[in-house]
C-alpha cells in the first residue's frame, strides 16, 4: 500500500476504534483514529489522500453532523459510514450528503477492506485530477494577455486570418502566438486545446472564467 494515503477512523467507542485500526494496519494502511469528531475535524491532514470511516451514532456530534461540518470546511475526503442501526432515512441522508458508502455493523473484513480500497483509489484519482488541473491552470496563467486572447479565438474555431482581423494584427504574428499557446499548454492539436479549455471551465478556475471567450 502506498505510504502517501491515510485512513481516518472516527468512533466514540475506543474499543471499536482500536479494532478497526488493527484490522486496517494488517494490510499496511496508515491509520489515525479519533474518539471525538471535533478532534478529527481540527487535526486531520487534507493534503493526504485517503478516506474516513465515520460512525453514525456518536453522541458529541453524530456522523451526519460531522459530514455537514466536513462539507462546510471544504473537506472532500470520501466517507464510509458505519452504523449499528439499520435506519433507511439516515442511510439516504448520508448518501445524499455525498457519502462513499454506508455499511451496517458488524462488517465482514473483506467488505470493509474492499470498500476502503475503492474509496482510497477514488480519492487518489480525485487528488491526481486536482493536481492535473492545478498544473493546467498554472500553464494557462503563464500565457500573456495577447496569447490568452488568441487561445480563446482558436478554441472557438476561428481561422488565423479572422483572428488577425479581430485583433488588428498581421496573420504572421497570429501564427507565432498560436505556436506559443500550443507549446505552453502542452498540446499539439486544436482539439487538445479545446479539451483543456473545457477542463478549466468545469473546474471553475476563476481567472479563466473571467476571460472573454466569446
Amino acid at each position, binding site marked *: 500500500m502506498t505510504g502517501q494515503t491515510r485512513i481516518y477512523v472516527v468512533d466514540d*467507542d475506543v*474499543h471499536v476504534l482500536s*479494532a478497526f485500526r*488493527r*484490522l486496517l494496519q494488517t494490510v499496511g494502511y496508515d491509520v489515525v483514529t479519533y474518539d471525538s469528531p471535533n478532534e478529527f475535524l481540527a487535526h486531520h491532514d487534507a493534503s493526504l489522500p485517503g478516506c474516513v470511516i465515520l460512525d453514525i451514532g456518536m453522541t458529541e456530534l453524530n456522523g451526519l453532523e460531522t459530514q455537514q461540518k466536513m462539507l462546510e470546511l471544504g473537506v472532500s475526503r470520501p466517507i464510509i459510514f458505519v452504523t*449499528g442501526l439499520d435506519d433507511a432515512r439516515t442511510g439516504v441522508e448520508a448518501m445524499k450528503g455525498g457519502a462513499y458508502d454506508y455499511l451496517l*455493523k458488524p462488517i465482514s473484513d473483506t467488505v470493509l477492506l474492499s470498500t476502503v480500497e475503492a474509496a482510497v483509489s477514488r480519492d487518489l484519482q480525485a487528488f491526481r485530477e486536482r493536481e492535473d488541473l492545478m498544473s493546467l491552470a498554472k500553464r494557462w496563467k503563464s500565457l500573456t494577455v495577447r496569447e490568452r486572447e488568441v487561445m480563446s479565438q482558436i478554441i472557438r474555431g476561428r481561422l488565423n486570418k479572422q483572428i488577425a482581423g479581430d485583433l488588428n494584427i498581421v496573420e504572421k504574428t497570429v501564427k507565432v502566438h498560436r505556436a506559443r499557446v500550443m507549446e505552453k499548454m502542452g498540446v499539439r492539436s486544436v482539439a487538445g486545446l479545446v479539451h483543456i479549455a473545457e477542463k478549466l471551465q468545469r473546474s471553475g478556475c476563476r481567472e479563466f472564467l473571467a476571460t472573454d471567450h466569446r
Partner: protein
Amino acid sequence: VRNVITAESKSGRPFDVNFRLVDRDGEPTRWIRCRGRSQTDDEGKISRIGGTLVDISDRMALQTEIESQRQSLIHLSRVGTVGTLTGAFAHELSQPLTAILHNAQAIERMLDQQPINMRELRSAISDIIEDDCRVSDVIRHLRALLKKDSSGFSQVDMTLLIHKVIGLVRKELALHHVKVAVKIAPNAPPVWGDDVQLQQLLLNLITNAIDAIQTSGKRESALTITAYGAGSHGNGNFHVCISDTGDGLTTAAMATLFDPFYSTKEHGLGLGLAISQAIVNGHKGSIRAENNSQGGAVFHVTLPAAREKAA
C-alpha cells in the same frame, strides 16, 4: 377465626373477618366474610353474638384476576417499551460485537505475518474478552428490564433511576438531536415503590417526549426533567416533571390522554399512558399533563416518599 371473634367479642368491638372454607371432598375453596358484634350481659359475659356470613368467593376470585391482569398488562407494555428501545440496544450490542469481530479478523491476519507482533496480538485478545463482558452486561440489563415478576416494594432512589433510564435512551436522544437537561433537587426523597415499574413509568414518559419532539421536527429540541421533594419528612412527596418541546397536547387529547387504546402515534397501541397511570395509582401517587410555555407538553408525577427509617 374463632380467636379473632373471641378477642373482638371480649372488647365489645364489631368484628369483620374473611376466612376460607376448605372442603375435603374436593369442592373448591370458598371465601366467607364474617361480620358482627357481641353483646355482653351485666357481668361482662358474652350473652349473644349477632352477625352475618357472606360467601365472597366470587369477589375474591375477581380481585385476584384483576390484579394478575394488571400485572401482565404492565409487563406486556414493558415488553413494548423495550421494543421502542430496540435501536438503542442494537447500538449497544453492535459496538462490542463489531470490535470483537474486527479484532478477531485482525488476529487472523496477524498470525499470517512474520514476525508476529505479540504485543498487538495480546492486546487484541484482551479487548475481545472485555467486549464480551460488555455484551453480557447489555443482555443482563435487557433481562432485568423484561423480567416478569416485580421485585416488590422497597425504597427506590429516584435520582439514580432517572439517570439509569436516560442512559437507556442515550443513543435515541443523540440520534434525534435531543438535548437533555436533568435538574434534581438535593431534597428529592426516595420513593416507596417497585423499581422495575417505576423505571417503566419513566421510560414511558421519556420515550413519549422523544417521540413528540421527533414528530414535531423542530430544530431546537430539548427534554427537561425536573425533580424535587415536597412536604415534611415522613409524609412528603416526590415530584418529577418531564417537559418536551414537541407540539403539545390538544384539548381533545388532554381529555382522553390516559384512556387505554388512545394514541396519536401511527403504530401506537395507546397503552403507554394508561399503564403509566396504573403504575402511579399502584403507588398511591398522581399523574397529570399540561402544555408548557414552549408549546410542548409536560407531565407531572407525584409519588409518596418512602418513610424515613428510624436512624
